[in-house]
Every structure is written in structure tokens, then in C-alpha cells.
């Protein structure tokens, strides 16, 4: 029984560390975890859920703004949504998404259509990848708790 929990905890620890090492998450995610307590045990999951909803909405906006069939592209409109996404991703520690937004913003300012379209595709893939990774991480947490264990605090160096 205990060996099972220990193994899950180790899996969780390794998985979490890998997410930081691979650049999916940065220290702002760590800050987010500090805000979770017994009073709000699902805080991180709730905020990330809001973030992913935001991704869907904003990427939809960007796609519509980049749609040439409706007329000329309004890069400032694209840029406004990119700015929002950059802010959100920065706030939750979604490092790769944020990095893409920085590049995307530059393409908007340069009014580079192809660059924007590329970034749009990449940011779409990136948020979905992060979502899957985090779901796996949250599932590990759930398994630990259900097995009667405590989710370990993972220190990232």
C-alpha cells in the first residue's frame, strides 16, 4: 500500500520536474501552487481551466482576424488578442505559450501575414499539448490522494 503511494509520488515528482525542464512551465506556475491551500484545494486546476478556455476564445479571435476572405487583415486586432494571451500565459506560468506570443506579437507589429499564420498554428498546438500534460499531472495528484497519500511539494532548482 505504502509502496504504491511512494511510487505514485515519485512518478508525480519526476513528471512535474520534466515539465519545467522541457520548458512547459516556469516559476510563475510554482507561485500559483503557493496560492492553493486547504480552503481552495483545486485553485490551480481552476485557474488553468480558465486559461485554456481563454486560449480557445483568443485563438478563435486571432483566426477570424487573420481570415483574408472577410477583407483585409487587421493586424492590430490580431495583436490585441495576442497581447491578452501573452498576459494570461505569463500569469499562469505557461512558458512555451508565452514565448510563442512574444514572437507572434512581433509578427503582428511587422504586419507579417505568413509569420502570423505560422504562430497561430503553433500556439494552437502548444496550448493543447500543455493541456494534455497538465491533465496527466492532475491525474497523478488525484491518484495519490485517492490512495491516501499526500501530494509532495516539488522543489524546482
Amino acid at each position, binding site marked *: 500500500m505504502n509502496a504504491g503511494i511512494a511510487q505514485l509520488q515519485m512518478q508525480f515528482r519526476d513528471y512535474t520536474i520534466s515539465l519545467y525542464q522541457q520548458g512547459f512551465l516556469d516559476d*510563475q506556475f510554482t*507561485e*500559483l501552487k*503557493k*496560492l492553493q*491551500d486547504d480552503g*481552495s484545494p483545486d*485553485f490551480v486546476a*481552476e*485557474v488553468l481551466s*480558465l*486559461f485554456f478556455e*481563454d486560449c480557445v476564445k483568443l485563438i478563435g479571435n486571432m483566426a477570424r482576424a487573420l481570415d483574408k476572405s472577410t477583407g483585409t487583415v487587421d493586424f492590430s486586432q490580431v495583436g*490585441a488578442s495576442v*497581447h*491578452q494571451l*501573452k*498576459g*494570461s500565459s*505569463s*500569469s*499562469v506560468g505557461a512558458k512555451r505559450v508565452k514565448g510563442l506570443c512574444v514572437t507572434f506579437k512581433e509578427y503582428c507589429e511587422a504586419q507579417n501575414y505568413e509569420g502570423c499564420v505560422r504562430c497561430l498554428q503553433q500556439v494552437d498546438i502548444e496550448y493543447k499539448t500543455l493541456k494534455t500534460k497538465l491533465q496527466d499531472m492532475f491525474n497523478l495528484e488525484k491518484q495519490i490522494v485517492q490512495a491516501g497519500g499526500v501530494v509532495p511539494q516539488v522543489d524546482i532548482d
Partner: protein
Amino acid sequence: MNGSGGSCSSLMEVAYDDDHHHGHHDDELHVLAVDDNLIDRKLVEKLLKISSCKVTTAENGIRALEYLGLGDQNQHIDALTNNVMKVNLIITDYCMPGMTGFELLKKVKESSNLKEVPVVIVSSENIPTRVNKCLASGAQMFMQKPLKLADVEKLKCHLMNCRS
């Protein structure tokens, strides 16, 4: 006004009175947090609550001004009758559509009732001209987004020291 020493009353002119206490402890800061981004609002609210502050959030400058009783002449009176708790601190994002945080800062500082309320501007971009402009217009502090727990602790200490 409140009876106990120092704390809230010194920051505000006589716009609100004892009837509007509603469980607001004298030693608790009541913060008005303004940000157009939902996630950032949720985060700053949690940061402040964990740091033992009472929090009210607003999604833009106009709503913030309405809450503060600066929306228009009539709303000032409404604020009194709507039992709005005194605000001890305003934290506002700089980049907001419509009214920017900077414009909100100026409106607050122009108000005889509210000019003593400290206003902190937060921004993801630490541009020197932006920082200087805000500080020159009376901002208490300019802080970088995203805010961390340590930032809020630092801010609280700074404010508490200023009050005593």
C-alpha cells in the same frame, strides 16, 4: 470615525462613516483590484486574500470609478447609500482598453475624497518612461506582472509603514 487607533480612518476623508463597516476589521486592508483580464483578476484576488486583505475587483477603469463613487455626481451619493466599504488601496493594471491604469490613477488623484488612497500600478512591461510617468502622477508604486506572494507582502509592509 472608527474609534481604534491609526489604521483605516487616516487614509480616507469623511466620505464614509461607521454604518458602512460590514465586518471590515480596522487592521484589514480593503483593496480594489482593477484588471481587464479575468485570470489576472482571479490571481490578484487570491494573492490579496491570502495576505489577509478584503478584495473588490473591477474589470475596467469605469467600473472602478463607479465603485469609488467617482462615476458621476449622482453615483457619489449612491456609493454612500450602497454601503461601499472604504478602499485603502487601489491596484490597477496599466494596459487596459478604454481607460488605462494611468488615466484611472489621475482621476483618483484629482478627487478630493480619494486622492489620499494609494494607487499601485502593475504592468508586464517595465518601461522606464512608463514607470516614471506613473510615479510622477502620484502612484505609490509600480510593480511588475505577474505579481507574486512576496510582492504583495512587500507592498503591505510598505503601506503599513506609510500609515503609521
